[in-house]
């Protein structure tokens, strides 16, 4: 596991993603965790301007970017300051001494130079003047000082490629393409990349530092690519609309970390996707509702504060029984909170955050690649049940990338929508007896002219009704319709381990990787622990209660202050215990293992 860290301007995200591609090419399984500052471009040299990129790769499947890196690359004192505590003792620390000036040390908050005061003795330190060596390597090309200096990251990448025996070709090709219009920059960057690599080969590196080689992982055969959650969600929505045979209108208002869903979809106009950057979240969701009224699939994406603003309008879609997909890319709260950090704290809001009894379906994607399938599922449920569906992802899924086995599109089951068109006995709240979905009659259809809205409708005529008994019935129908979705869903089953035992660890969303790895570790130690990961938050899958009761104990780790755990306790009266981490970062595997073992011991006594 390796972590690149430097100033926002140092190009660490590019370095990291190049390294990722090269590693994937080498056949390793991997997971990444980009971590950038909240400021657009913070002043150079400050700790809050540090940008990081962590990659975990291994011969076995990798589920998370890993707890503590083995290698840390620190391009300046601030990057060291921010990250020195996460590097594993004995880990390899690569620092650019060229940036360790008095001024930079001060900005980073160092009183003395850590390279000299012994504080780094616990690591294997490789202190190199990367700046100087980079400038050397490009001086034959006629560049300004700024541009020359910018090649530092490629020099470093070259060194890392050597260390991990990675190929440089793909990065060289990428650089040529990127700097097509400024070939001198391409040349310089390639020169720096090669120089770094050569340095690794030739330099007498201190004892204990030498080329690693990680053998290729055993992955399912097929074509792979790296995918981030926001890419996969966007493509899944497009696939869902295609499977339904509908045009899609995506209404959104930019917000971190959901904005690039909008960006990704804006490029897909030729797929029948209309993106609408609205004046605010309320307009975004109501435009999507208008589009659904018009017969398209209306979709809206945002993050927690945006969902809060949309909640009144989502209630309208519940009452009017229109299809709608709401993607909530969760981030740290409450309020503006920690906009660039991840969290799973919108579950309550998703399930219950509306006025009145306003049930809808809630799904949660488990990995970046899973976002693709859950987005399709969200569209399916929305159109088949005429209901809003909330799809929960989070900042970690949205920006983290993982190698993804590309889906076989032909194997996806279409669910074509036929808008209603029969005037005979028509009223807008005619229901399908099985799904309880009402008919979807679309403006433009002769003979089906009708009016809908947020006032209560009569069950048998679709007209406004203030009748007390009818309201009771309609409240119940709305609830039953959502509960009935569970009939379509697979029964609950564990993702790893037996269907009974000492402990069931129940997770949801982006903790999939860490829980899965922790459970694997626990099981290899002989513990009778299983893992179940919920993708259907509401309604919950059938058989879940039984399954929970088949274990001596249930632990629910969440990146929030305990939300799913309350749902499970209320539904099944099972004494599920909560494990919370609200640090804006994924669970550390070691912490999970420790928490489980501690509990298992406790119950042994």
């Amino acid at each position, binding site marked *: 596991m390796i972590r690149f860290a430097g100033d926002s301007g140092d190009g660490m995200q590019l370095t990291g993603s190049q390294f990722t*591609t090269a590693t*994937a090419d080498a*056949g390793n399984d991997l997971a990444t965790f980009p971590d950038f500052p909240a400021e657009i471009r913070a002043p150079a040299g400050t700790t809050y301007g540090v940008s990081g990129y962590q990659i975990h790769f291994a011969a076995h499947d990798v589920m998370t970017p890993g707890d503590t890196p083995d290698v840390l690359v620190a391009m300046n004192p601030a990057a060291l300051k921010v990250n020195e505590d996460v590097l594993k003792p004995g880990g390899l620390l690569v620092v650019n001494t060229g940036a360790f000036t008095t001024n930079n040390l001060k900005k980073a908050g160092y009183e003395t130079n850590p390279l000299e005061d012994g504080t780094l003795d616990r690591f294997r330190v490789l202190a190199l003047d990367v700046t100087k060596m980079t400038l050397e390597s490009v001086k034959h090309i006629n560049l300004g000082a700024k541009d020359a200096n910018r090649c530092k990251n490629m020099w470093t990448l070259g060194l890392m490629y050597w260390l991990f025996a990675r190929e440089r070709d*793909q990065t060289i090709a990428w650089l040529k393409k990127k700097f097509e219009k400024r070939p001198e920059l391409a040349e310089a960057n390639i020169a720096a990349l090669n120089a770094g690599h050569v340095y690794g080969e030739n330099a007498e590196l201190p004892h204990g530092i030498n080329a690693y080689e990680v053998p290729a992982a055993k*992955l*399912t*055969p*097929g*074509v*792979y*690519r*790296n995918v981030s959650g926001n890419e996969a969600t966007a*493509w899944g929505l*497009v*696939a869902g609309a*295609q499977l339904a045979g509908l*045009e899609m*209108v995506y*209404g959104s208002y930019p917000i971190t970390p959901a904005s690039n869903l909008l960006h990704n979809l804006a490029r*897909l*106009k*030729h*797929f029948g996707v*209309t993106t*609408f950057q*609205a*004046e605010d979240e*309320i*307009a975004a969701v*109501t*435009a*999507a*509702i*208008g*589009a659904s*009224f*018009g*017969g*398209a699939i*209306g979709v809206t994406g945002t993050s927690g504060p945006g969902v809060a603003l949309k909640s009144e*309008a989502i209630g*309208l879609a519940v009452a*009017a029984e229109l299809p709608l997909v709401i993607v909530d890319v969760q981030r740290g709260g409450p309020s503006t909170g920690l906009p660039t950090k991840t969290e799973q704290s919108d579950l309550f809001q998703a399930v219950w955050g509306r006025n009145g009894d306003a049930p809808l379906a809630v799904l949660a994607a488990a990995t970046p690649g899973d976002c693709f399938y859950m987005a399709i599922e969200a569209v399916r449920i929305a159109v088949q049940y005429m209901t809003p569906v909330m799809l929960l992802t989070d900042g970690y899924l949205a920006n983290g990338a993982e190698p993804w*086995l*590309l889906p076989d*599109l032909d194997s996806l089951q279409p669910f074509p929508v036929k808008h209603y068109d029969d005037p005979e006995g028509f009223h807008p709240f005619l229901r399908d007896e099985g799904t309880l979905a009402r008919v979807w009659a*679309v*403006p*433009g*259809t*002769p*003979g089906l*002219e*009708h*009016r*809908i*809205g*947020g006032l209560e409708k009569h069950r048998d005529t679709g*007209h*406004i009704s203030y009748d007390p008994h009818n309201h009771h019935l309609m409240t119940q129908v709305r609830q039953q319709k959502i509960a009935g979705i569970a009939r379509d869903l697979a029964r609950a089953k564990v993702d790893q381990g037996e269907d009974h035992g000492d402990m069931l660890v129940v997770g949801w969303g982006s903790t999939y990787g860490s829980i899965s790895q922790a459970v694997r570790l626990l099981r290899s130690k002989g513990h009778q622990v299983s893992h179940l990961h919920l993708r259907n938050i509401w309604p919950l899958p059938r058989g879940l209660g039984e399954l929970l009761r088949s274990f001596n104990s249930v632990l629910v780790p969440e990146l929030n202050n305990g939300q799913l755990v309350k749902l499970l306790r209320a539904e099944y009266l099972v004494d599920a215990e909560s494990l919370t981490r609200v640090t804006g970062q994924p669970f550390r595997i070691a912490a999970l293992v420790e928490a489980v073992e501690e509990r298992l011991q406790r119950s042994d006594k």
Partner: protein
Amino acid sequence: MSPNPPKKDYTRQDFTSDQEVRWCPGCGDYAILAAVQRTLPSLGASPENTVFISGIGCSSRFPYYMNTYGFHTIHGRAPAVATGLKLANPELDVWVITGDGDGLSIGGNHLLHVLRRNVDLQILLFNNQIYGLTKGQYSPTSQVGKVTPSSPLGSIDQPVIPTRVALGAGAKFVARAFDTSKQLTDALTAAKQHKGASFVEILQNCPVFNDGVFDLITDRKTGPAHQLWLEHGKPMRFGANGERGLRLSPTTLRLEAVTLGRDGVTEQDILVHDETNPALAWMLTELADVVALGVLYRQEGPVYNEDLSAQREAAKKRFGKPDLHALLRQGHTWTVS
């Protein structure tokens, strides 16, 4: 998306739904409803391709009474819902019905943005200077000093001028009429014919909570002296016998009402209405003695949904048939075997 229906000669009845109208007796909304139901057939509209979208308020009950498609949404959001509907199906003829509270209080921002984007819609704002449905609180158009349950000592809020808000937002069609005016039909017709967002303010009497606020303008007796019905290219004259008119004071750069024949004022001095002049429209939004009615401003301009369709077509041409398989394989992929 919408099928091309066989042309039919529709009548007012075809646009009248089977729902009982539930406004208070004497409410100005009745006259507006009748005008819309009367006008639509003459505009070649068909019930199945016409949609009325409203927010919440007495006025927003309107869609229930039209035998067209209709959506009674939530408070203030009708312009955004209508925008989304036009994005899904630009062929539909979409009308937005809103009130002074719905459209200028909670919904002010959506109104601003639908107007600046120039989405092809007709927006009818029923201005009764009061919140009718919630039983009579002052609204953003109520006059200062208005005593209501929420302003027992009189309102201290400065009112907005709806047509001015529309112009400020960049609206390209701004008109004004009143509930019982026979010219309301003309305003509706012009609005429908205009491509882009057409904003029509309709002064509407609420006999229950704000009776008679517009009497000076709408009354048969006092009205003619206070109604200036605008016509493009015609001198701006008013009064029972057209004896008065508007003149631009060149020194103060303000419009003033003058009487023909008095102080040497002749027909030549009367300013001619130019509905394409934004500055003139601005001056007409608030006059001292008289209310400008009819089309204050009309200007062709790029229409949002048209530009969008064009962009969509261009994208299709440029990027070819949508191919999800290829999309997923864009960028770097590798094979594990």
